């Protein structure tokens, strides 16, 4: 690398941080609507750094759900990070000891993972630290701004911002759905189940956290059974 790895990491984090700033602003507004104070919303963003898990989290807090349901919901929604962490662990060089891994794991989001994975070669600790700073600041700053100043916005704008986080989810889901029949099938199964859990009498009595768990586990299992992922190393081997 021609630049210092820390500076390269910082630079790579800027577009992620800008995206987080706007989505976190909407999350801040939603947190206040769920009954949290701006400081409480900020602390969630500073310690969790995950959009989907936090959104489900504040909904469960507002509903006064049990802590076990909260833990299981976070486990399921954030299970994807386990896969990303396993994948990333193969890309870290010798400068990433246990302490450095403990720190970098904290900010392993979908977008940071995507950028880190796309880098050629192994990643050193300077690059990893640089990469996580701007997104973390953007996510925290956006949350506290949205929570504190969101109520100053006219209802017109606040209403429009409520959909921002779902726009981000769709931007993650749809491009792979377009390319891969397997992903498309998983997405359609999950959508059908989620609709059933919302509207079918009996099923709609299931608490929202468990409903997400059921939908996700069932759809991902169906995907794994119908379309097992190829193992490139096995395929390439003679």
């Amino acid at each position, binding site marked *: 690398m021609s630049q210092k790895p820390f500076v390269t990491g910082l630079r790579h984090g800027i577009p992620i941080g800008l995206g987080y700033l706007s989505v976190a602003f909407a999350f801040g507004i939603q947190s206040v609507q769920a009954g949290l104070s701006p400081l409480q919303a900020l602390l969630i963003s500073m310690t969790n750094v995950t959009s989907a898990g936090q*959104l489900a989290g504040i909904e469960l807090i507002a509903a006064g759900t049990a*802590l076990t349901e909260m833990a299981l919901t976070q486990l399921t929604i954030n299970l994807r990070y386990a896969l990303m962490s396993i994948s*990333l662990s193969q890309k870290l060089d010798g400068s990433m000891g246990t302490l450095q891994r403990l720190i970098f794991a904290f900010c392993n989001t979908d977008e940071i993972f995507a950028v880190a994975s796309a880098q050629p070669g192994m990643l050193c600790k300077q690059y990893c630290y640089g990469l996580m700073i701007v997104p973390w600041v953007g996510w925290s700053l956006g949350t506290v701004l949205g929570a504190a100043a969101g109520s100053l916005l006219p209802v017109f704008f606040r*209403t*429009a911002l409520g959909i921002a986080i779902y726009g981000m989810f769709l*931007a993650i889901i749809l491009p792979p759905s377009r390319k891969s029949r397997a992903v498309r099938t998983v997405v359609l199964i999950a959508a059908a189940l989620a609709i059933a859990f919302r509207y079918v009498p009996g099923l709609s009595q299931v608490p929202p956290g468990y409903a997400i768990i059921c939908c996700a586990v069932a759809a991902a299992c169906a995907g*794994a059974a119908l*379309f097992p992922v190829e193992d490139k190393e096995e395929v390439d081997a003679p």
Partner: protein
Amino acid sequence: MSWSVYLPYLLVMALTTYLIRMLPLTIFRKPIKSRFFRSFLHYVPYAVLTAMTIPGVLYSTGYDGGDIRPLVCAAAGLLVAVGFAWRGKSLLTVAIAACLGVAAAQGLFLLI
């Protein structure tokens, strides 16, 4: 919200999320062998995000079963977001486009 109610939630959320990210990165240093489990993990993000988006996105603008206008605005935002996301636009672009879709529908209702 009172801090005595909030703090246990914060602790559970932060701890669960961190452990999921941290344990694999520090302990597992070999690839997973089970093909089914690897496939399952591969599909989990899409399944989770879909289950959170459908049908929740339709309620994101305040529709509560009464006045149908927020539902129409959310549907407009959803359509715009799907159009942009399908074309592979960035997270930021799709999020802003979705908001503009909702705003446009709200503007129309103001004119009617």
